């Protein structure tokens, strides 16, 4: 075959060909009389069906002194029903090739599954049985509690998770749910009674504010019919809870050093309270973050990794939740260069907030985010997860369909304005999990703020100024 045009390797990157549009099928919503919301998206070419039940039972709905209750209850949800024990339930699903996963976040508990299309009815039958008649047996409560306590122990010894947990503890006041770890603390998990698990499930695992989401080769009517047929006996309402207040920024920057004796690296977090999830300014946050630290070619990564070799990588991001969100920059650096890395990170962060991004950077980040968007909507489980977000955060059904257009509308000015309103490098907390014997004196000398030293097990070891 002959080449259509000769290769000019020296002329730089080739021109792109003709663009082919990406079409996302519509999301169809239907509400059952009692409030259960059915969301469906039809993808005829997919041999699998993926679905989830989204329950308004996130960890923020756990009582203040029972941190970890929502996570624990979610873990025990598949621990047995009135007619089958945990092993029999697992066996029935796994014979169908289905792993039923329950995951609990701050804003929801989600039960998700992926199945061959012709086994969907059999799968939903078991899912419905769990929703209608889970019994939370005593033995499962105790077993899962032990697992959860051991997992909390593991988190405390994982330097990255330790640093992230300590950042949340630093940014949010003790009254706020985000102050504690998502799965609670040792004391609160130990205190949970089985009766509280049962009562939590009774109050929160209810259809009126739940979502039933299904993606696959099924028309919207088929999905609605399946929901009616299988979830007919699942009834009731969740109780209402007081609103959670938005957390404020601190007056002075907190600086926390979490002592890990002999650590060869320092896990650094620079962070502050961010906005709750909403459409307002979201595109600016996404593009603005991609330039700062949300892509490989971000300012932070090119500086700390590609210029200085301080780290394997550095990322920044907005965690967006129903209530207060979180902005954070995170990296792990060799202990010896901790202060230099911190200075470079602050140099980039301050410069970015002061001047905003360049036009080229914005164009690059917009094209990146708009282009990778279809890659995040490729498979049935991915699509189901995206649709779950629509339900959890009350986003419009066309949210994803308009995403790329919103991204492309962002400008250097709008990013500068939105980020300037939200981020403040001078009030951002600094948390470092590393060897305090090496780090404390130079960190104090850096003058970022009063340094609080904590031990890795959560206690405060001392405050110096």
């Amino acid at each position: 075959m002959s080449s259509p045009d000769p290769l000019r390797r020296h002329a730089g990157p080739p021109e792109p060909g003709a663009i082919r549009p990406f079409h996302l099928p519509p999301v169809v919503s239907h509400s059952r009389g009692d409030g259960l919301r059915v969301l469906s998206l039809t993808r005829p070419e997919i041999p699998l069906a993926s679905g989830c039940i989204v329950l308004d039972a996130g960890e923020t709905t756990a009582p203040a002194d029972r941190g970890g209750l929502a996570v624990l209850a979610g873990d025990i949800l598949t621990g047995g029903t009135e007619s089958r024990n945990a092993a029999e339930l697992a066996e029935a699903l796994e014979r169908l090739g289905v792993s039923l996963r329950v995951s609990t976040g701050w804003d929801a508990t989600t039960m998700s599954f992926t199945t061959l299309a012709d086994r969907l009815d059999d799968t939903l039958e078991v899912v419905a049985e769990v929703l209608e008649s889970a019994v939370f047996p005593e033995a499962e409560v105790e077993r899962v509690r032990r697992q959860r306590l051991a997992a909390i122990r593991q988190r405390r010894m994982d330097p990255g998770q330790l640093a992230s947990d300590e950042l949340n503890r630093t940014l949010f006041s003790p009254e706020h749910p985000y102050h504690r770890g998502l799965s609670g603390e040792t004391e609160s998990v130990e205190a949970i009674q089985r009766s509280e698990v049962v009562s939590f499930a009774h109050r929160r695992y209810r259809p009126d504010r739940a979502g039933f989401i299904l993606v696959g080769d099924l028309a919207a009517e088929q999905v609605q019919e399946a929901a009616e047929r299988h979830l007919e006996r699942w009834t009731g309402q969740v109780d209402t809870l007081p609103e959670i207040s938005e957390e404020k920024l601190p007056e002075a920057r907190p600086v926390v050093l979490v002592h890990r004796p002999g650590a060869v690296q320092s896990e650094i977090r620079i962070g502050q309270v961010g906005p709750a999830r909403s459409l307002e300014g979201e595109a600016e946050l996404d593009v603005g973050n991609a330039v700062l630290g949300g892509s490989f070619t971000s300012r932070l990564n090119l500086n700390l990794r590609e210029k200085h070799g301080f780290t394997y990588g550095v990322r920044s991001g907005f965690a967006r939740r129903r209530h207060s969100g979180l902005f954070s920059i995170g990296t792990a650096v060799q202990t010896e260069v901790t202060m230099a890395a911190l200075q470079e990170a602050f140099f980039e962060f301050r410069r970015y907030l002061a001047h905003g991004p360049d036009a080229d950077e914005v164009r690059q980040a917009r094209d990146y985010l708009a282009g990778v968007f279809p890659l995040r909507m490729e498979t049935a489980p991915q699509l189901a997860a995206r649709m779950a977000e629509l339900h959890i955060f009350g986003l419009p059904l066309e949210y994803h369909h308009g995403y790329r257009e919103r991204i492309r509308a962002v400008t250097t000015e709008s990013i500068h304005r939105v980020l300037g309103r939200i981020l403040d490098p001078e009030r951002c907390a600094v948390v470092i999990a590393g060897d305090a014997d090496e780090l404390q004196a130079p960190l104090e000398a850096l003058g970022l703020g009063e340094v609080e030293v904590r031990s890795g097990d959560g206690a405060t070891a001392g405050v110096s100024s």
Partner: protein
Amino acid sequence: MLSFSFERHTLDNGLTVILAPDRAVPVVALNLWYGVGSRNERPGRTGFAHLFEHMMFQGSAHVPKNRHFELVEGAGGSLNATTWFDRTNYFETLPSHHLDLALWLESDRMGWLLPAMTQEKLDNQRDVVLNERRERYENQPYGDWDERLQRMVFPEDHPYHHTVIGSAEDIAAADLDDVAEFFQVYYAPNNAVLTLTGDLDPALALDRVREYFGEIPRGDQVPPIPGRLDPGERIGGTVRETVRARVPLPRVYLGSRVPPFTVDDFYAADVATSVLSDGRASRLYERLVRERGIAKDVVSYAFPLATGRSFMISWITGYPESDPAELETALAAELEGLTDVSDGEVERALALAETRFLRQVAQLATRADMFSMSEQLLGDAGRLNTEMERLRAVTPAQVRDFAERCLGADNRAVLTYLPEEEA
């Protein structure tokens, strides 16, 4: 049943090209496997294949430093590379109208990497890789488990004796001459498989591939893998090591030599690990986590490795008060106990494997990687079209036979981690 159409071509310079169109979405995935991994490293240069992979992102003759990432991200693509025992793979997924960009970038670094190499770039990436080593291995609880277990499962002269990340000393010792030599020996078109999946016209795509890669000269024949490739079927006993370290919970790893990925016996190993730890009705979860409550978590898997023998790993994490000897005995008993595996257990494992397989191939990038892997390691690009049939052909008798041959005390490495005594 599931079948992906594809074409296989070989260019004059030896580059194997797999083209697998799927035009459902306007996305194309490029996957390039080089037949070089940590198994090819010589003594004193462990970790070099991986360090070299980093250097492939530092620009080439016509691509300045950082431009590779900028161009792909700016085109709306995602990209990365990984190094493993038997191979190194490079991949990007992009909107399909940017296919030429991916071909231009990959061909430029396959053909013209060395003119862009500098000491400064090497020094920078050596620091990055040493920090990767610190982050993922040195500063992580149990982070050195694979280094220790591989040393126990494979003899010193076998290429799987050392890890992919390699030793910090060896990484620090690498110089520009190593980069040049490694590139010339291993990064040749005749040692690579290029796969494209997604929104493409095979005839046009082949034309473009020829245009971009055709002028790169064929390299010499790749030298044999150093060492003795057949370590023997079994370890020949039970070898033990106990480590006191900063870990939260006691954990016991069991390692065994198993048949390599390249023979059908490997499927029995794969099904065995699935019976053991895939899902909550699996043997290890059901018995050790749920019933006896001695394990916080359990894992079992077999690496798909091709050189002589492969490697099966199982571990059990206990609770703070666990007796490590009890953990070891319990886990070993379940592995040996597979000699009585039932039909129902194998059926359950196969049902889960089928759903997982369909999930994996639904992603263009994963499908492309599977094509490359099948071609590079098995010489059979279309293997994924028969993968489920092969798995379903595994009988309970084969799993029992596998357990009999491979999971006994004569083929076992035991690595135990215990939390350091509190001061």
